[in-house]
């Protein structure tokens, strides 16, 4: 099937500053793609390029098989939702929804029908006569989504739409966006710096840094097999624990300080048997304690330095063999500062990265 959006060799620079470099991306019809990265990585810039709000320096953008590189935003068949809602303050919600349709000179009856349909989907019918100032944050964002919805666009672009909302509302609207996607099944590109939004919403996540896509894959792949140390550190909270050490010549042991970890069960890239300096990373939630740790292939004795009870889980900072590690324990476990603890993990859950290139081995 033809991709819904395809971006070829896209580059964008402001003067000498290269924001996007030779970027290629294909988004399938109906896919939910999340662009994830810390601020300044170029994710919003990329979205603005797709929307046509920024002129590209080089490359091409296709939407629905049509080359839209030189097209005006309104002619690209997109709907866009902004972080600050960007509702027109002097218009009612109905006015906001119909503004684009009026510009497109649609017949009055059709405008009304589309506005009512969008309002029904988003459950903002009672608010249609109100001005944005009289709405709450969540209602405003719903109205803003409605403005994208009435356009009957094949592609939805979201620019950090939930960042201005409080935590509870953010979680609610996240679910609504996901349901909306299931209902409409159009292509959505969603920019965020929030990894939970990314993991929960995406079919695929593109992790960006410095204007490049570092990894493009399903949330599962990104979480379990990060391509490099940056991605590994970026995804997951608290961050992955890292051991600085050496892989032996037979690629079967990893030595860090006085310790030697067996690497049986770890899947190196096919056909390679790396050796030399490397990082070994293990996520806090893949560490175990107590009896499980005794049975684990890799074990360490440590002391609890800090406990952060979260209710569902308990985070513990453990100092073991000269390393300071985060461990995610069961919520009901009773430990306190200064307790001795045995922790361990299975090398199959670990990630090993080259010391210099920081790429996954």
């Amino acid at each position, binding site marked *: 099937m033809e991709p819904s959006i395809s971006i070829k060799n896209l580059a964008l620079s402001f003067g000498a500053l290269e924001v996007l470099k030779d970027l290629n991306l294909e988004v399938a019809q109906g896919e939910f793609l999340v662009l994830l990265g810390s601020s300044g990585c170029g994710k919003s810039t990329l979205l603005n390029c797709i929307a046509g709000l920024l002129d590209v320096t080089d490359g091409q953008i296709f939407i629905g098989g049509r080359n839209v590189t030189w097209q005006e935003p309104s002619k690209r068949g997109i709907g866009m939702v902004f972080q*600050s809602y*960007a509702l027109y303050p002097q218009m009612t919600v109905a006015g906001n929804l119909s*503004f684009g349709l009026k510009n497109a000179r649609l017949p009055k009856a059709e405008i009304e029908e589309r506005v009512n349909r969008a309002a029904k989907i988003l459950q903002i019918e009672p608010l249609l006569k109100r001005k944005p100032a009289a709405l709450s944050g969540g209602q405003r964002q719903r109205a803003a989504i409605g403005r994208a919805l009435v356009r009957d666009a094949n592609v939805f672009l979201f620019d950090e739409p939930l960042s201005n909302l409080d935590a509870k509302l953010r979680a609610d609207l996240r679910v609504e966006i996901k349901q909306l996607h299931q209902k409409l099944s159009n292509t959505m590109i969603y920019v965020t710096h929030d990894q939970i939004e990314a993991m929960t919403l995406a079919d695929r996540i593109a992790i960006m840094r410095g204007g490049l896509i570092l990894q493009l894959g399903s949330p599962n792949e990104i979480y379990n097999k990060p391509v490099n140390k940056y991605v590994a550190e970026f995804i997951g909270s608290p961050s992955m624990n890292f051991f600085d050490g050496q892989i032996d010549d037979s690629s079967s042991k990893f030595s860090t300080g006085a310790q030697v970890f067996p690497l049986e069960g770890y899947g190196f890239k096919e056909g390679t048997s790396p050796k030399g300096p490397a990082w070994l990373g293990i996520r806090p939630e893949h560490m175990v304690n107590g009896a499980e740790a005794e049975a684990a292939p890799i074990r360490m004795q440590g002391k609890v330095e800090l406990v952060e009870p979260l209710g569902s889980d308990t985070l513990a900072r453990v100092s073991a063999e000269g390393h300071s590690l985060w461990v995610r324990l069961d919520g009901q476990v009773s430990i306190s500062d200064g307790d001795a603890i045995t922790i361990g993990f299975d090398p199959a859950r670990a990630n090993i990265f080259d010391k210099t290139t920081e790429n996954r081995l």
Partner: protein
Amino acid sequence: MADTDVLPNNTSTGLETSGPRGPRPRPMLSRRNIILYGTLIVIAVYYLLPLYVMIVTSLKGMPEIRLGNIFAPPVEVTFQPWVKAWAEACTGLNCDGLSRGFWNSVRITVPSVIISIAIASVNGYALANWRFKGSEIFFTILIFGSFIPYQVMIYPIVIVLRELGVYGSLTGLVIVHTIFGMPILTLLFRNYFVSVPEELFKAARVDGAGFWGIYLRIMLPMSLPIFVVAIILQITGIWNDFLFGVVYTKPDTYPMTVQLNNIVNSVQGVKEYNVNMAATIITGLVPLIVYFLSGKLFVRGIAAGAVKG
């Protein structure tokens, strides 16, 4: 007694319940109030006294003025000086008072204000939202324009107006006022439109609105306060202008300020202080009324850029 103990906790803590509670009392005649209101009253009197003298004098006949009690209220109230200032006072050849100048000033101010604000608001909008190649340089040149003293340009403009064939006419003066209002007004509008969130502008573009669509349907309805500021600035500036009025017009087309000067500064005959005072008040009335009617909006407009991010 146990049932009267509504708050048993209070007794057990031993804290005094009869002590200060609720808002702290602030007596009207505290030292702070006396100093504050005293200062305000003194300053208000200082500024209002000249106005009082003007009004009182304008309502007296000349014999009463010659007595020299400038602070005394009029014994015999007369509106004759006002009538004379408006309809009979002589300026040069014409003896129809300030009324001629008033209508000239209206004919100068109204088109100048409308044209200058219409152009400057579009300028400011384009500079804020539609950055084009060289827009920064254009803006710098425009701002630079507001620092050049007017006197430097008087003669060159005389030549330009003469070549255009509008020297001495109201049209010429309107053109001059429009041009000289441009730097400051453009700066004003640009800074206001820059403070409008960029995403609003982007959303309008996605919605298919063009340059004029966004200006007329999104930006304009949002910027009433800044328009009020611009209107007040321009009305007061143009109405009170003397220099351009005296240079670029002739007696028939003199604005009110020039006429006022001619009445007040006439060297022949008796100095009619009451007529002078009345004429001055009439001339100053228009900016005053404009300010009183829209003062609240003016303050809001000035503050808008600072509060909204």
